[in-house]
């Protein structure tokens, strides 16, 4: 592993900021730029920018603690899917009570939390303690994902909520794979100022008015003129 850090990183280390912290902070602009690229150019929406970024770092944290890149994906994805499933069930359950938004959401989160605890315990029972050994914070982040999911379900319907969840999962997995890539980590540690380039990229993306990749699929019949009416 390369130990050649830039001046900036060395100064941060000298002041007692851990290397991992510096690296992750420098990675954040890259992650959010990846997310905006997916939204503006590819057309994968996901749950805004905050949720996929947080899920990415949750994956990262789980992966680091489990000491294995693939475990980050494995555990992260299972918790993610579990949260979505329990969230959907709780919402259906809560529907008949017609509570105000926040109290209802609090109950949904409670149910998801309890379910997560149950899953960890069941894992322990079957002597699969890998997940239970993971620090709780990334798991908590995953649990709060349910709010985004449920509120989307209410606003835009289940179909869209599920599509957006899958998109969030895909973006997070891709971002996670990128920020776990050792050459990128070394590069950022050596040339931290290069992350300012992401600002330029985002200015460009902010003016981008072309069709998104997904829209080429959505409008493919229009583009090919397949269904033009017989006059």
């Amino acid at each position, binding site marked *: 592993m390369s130990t050649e850090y830039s001046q900036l990183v060395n100064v941060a280390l000298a002041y007692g900021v851990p290397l991992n912290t510096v690296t992750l902070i420098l990675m954040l602009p890259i992650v959010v730029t990846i997310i905006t690229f997916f939204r503006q150019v590819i057309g994968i929406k996901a749950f805004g920018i905050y949720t996929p970024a947080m899920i990415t770092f949750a994956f990262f944290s789980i992966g680091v603690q489990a000491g294995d890149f693939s475990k980050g994906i494995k555990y992260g994805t299972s918790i993610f899917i579990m949260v979505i499933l329990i969230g959907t069930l709780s919402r259906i359950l809560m529907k008949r009570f*017609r509570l105000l938004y926040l109290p209802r959401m609090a109950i949904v989160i409670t149910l998801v939390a309890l379910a997560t605890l149950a899953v960890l315990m069941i894992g322990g029972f079957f002597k699969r303690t890998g997940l239970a050994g993971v620090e709780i914070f990334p798991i908590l982040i995953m649990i709060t994902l349910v709010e985004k999911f449920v509120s989307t379900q209410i606003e835009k319907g289940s179909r869209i909520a599920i599509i957006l969840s899958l998109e969030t999962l895909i973006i997070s997995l891709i971002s996670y794979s990128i920020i776990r890539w050792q050459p990128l980590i070394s590069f950022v540690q050596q040339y931290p100022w290069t992350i300012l380039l992401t600002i330029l990229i985002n200015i460009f993306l902010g003016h981008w*008015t072309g069709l998104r990749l997904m*829209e080429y699929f*959505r*409008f493919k*019949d229009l583009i090919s003129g397949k*269904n*033009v009416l017989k*006059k």
Partner: protein
Amino acid sequence: MFSKSKNILGMNARNLIYIRPNNLKSAKKLADDKLRCKRVLKKAKVPVPRLIKSIKTQEDLDNFDFSTLPNSFVLKPNFGFGGDGIMVVYGRKKGSENVWVKANRSPVTEDYLRTHIKNILDGSFSRTGTSDVAFFEERIKLYPGFKPYAFRGVPDIRIIVYNRVPVMAMMRIPTEASGGTSNLHRGGIGIGIDMATGVTTTAIQYDRVVEKSPRGLLLSGIKIPQWKDILELAIKAQNVSGLGYLGADIAIDRENGPVFMELNARPGLSIQVANQEGLLARLNRVEGLKIKTVRRGVALSQNLFGGEIEEEIEGLSGKRIIGTVEKIKIIGRNKKEIKIEAKVDTGAGFTSIDLDLAKELGFSETMEEYERIYSEQGEWKELENLSVKERGLLFKKVPYLVDTAIINSSHGTSYRPVVRVKIIMDKKVIPARITIIDRQHLKYPVIIGRRNLKQFLVEVK
């Protein structure tokens, strides 16, 4: 492939080029506030579903007498979205007081309504979850022509209006999949509309082309009634809403015709699939045009974005198509009416009638007096040397004469009297100033000239 894709409006361009600069925050806020929309639109003489009662507080609810409600109505949350929290009541249950029924015949009691209103007031259906206002409005009754297509709801018409020109339209039909709402995301059917005629074209469900409704009916070729009125409403709504890029939702009521339902500040893109055409190309065509009146906007829309059938041309400019010979009715003095065949001649400027016909129409005195002065002047030769003013003075005393005109015909130039009549052609009443000439040797005693053909298109056979 890529050249055609240039005509398509994508999400990025819609947001950055059309919504951001044209739909200001205050206008968007108006679009979200259903009650305020209703007031603003009503003031601008745009018909909206009649408000029965709004309930703002618990106190309002306690004091409300439910027996004053009509047999059918709709209960809505003011800041609701996506059709959530809307309750449609179809009729009063027979033999019981204050019990109504929904479309699926399930009963709606007063208590049931109270609970629902309380939930609305608490904000259960509002976007922000904060307290809301509930209101009752008149239920739009299904137009019979749409009945076979709709499932439990009322189809509506979405029109994109930009720069005061309706650029694209689609009809949205509620289906079983969409649960009776016309929301396309939930599985409603969208059908493209030909802007000139208001006739439906291609249908889509979930962004895929479908040909028939779930009940097996062909979805293309449905004629939307009062199409021009609908286009006018959409433009008027844009004028008052301040939304430069507007999605106007209009429904058709069985009794009241087109009724404006909702303003939409960020209309979706699927309308392009339903019309099998890109929006961007159409938006570019109306960019920067100065549209002064609503009617101009309608005419432009129909002309630019319409199809090619003959009937469509008629609808398009409001012009009727006539042949070269038409049966007409002329109304002369003292309401004297004469039915006659006329030649339609776009080569002539003035409409002219034969001497004898003029006499029958009550212009005998006019002709006698005119001819007397005319011959005194040695006919045209002398008159030619007089100025317009002098000529006018000469004929001033001729009864019922409104003007005189120089007519060039096959046998030379002549100077003819002009009188005022009414002509009824193809059911249109045309006030006309016509010349009187000798047409005895000609087949038709009347020719209709360009001056009176402004409302028509002449089809030459």
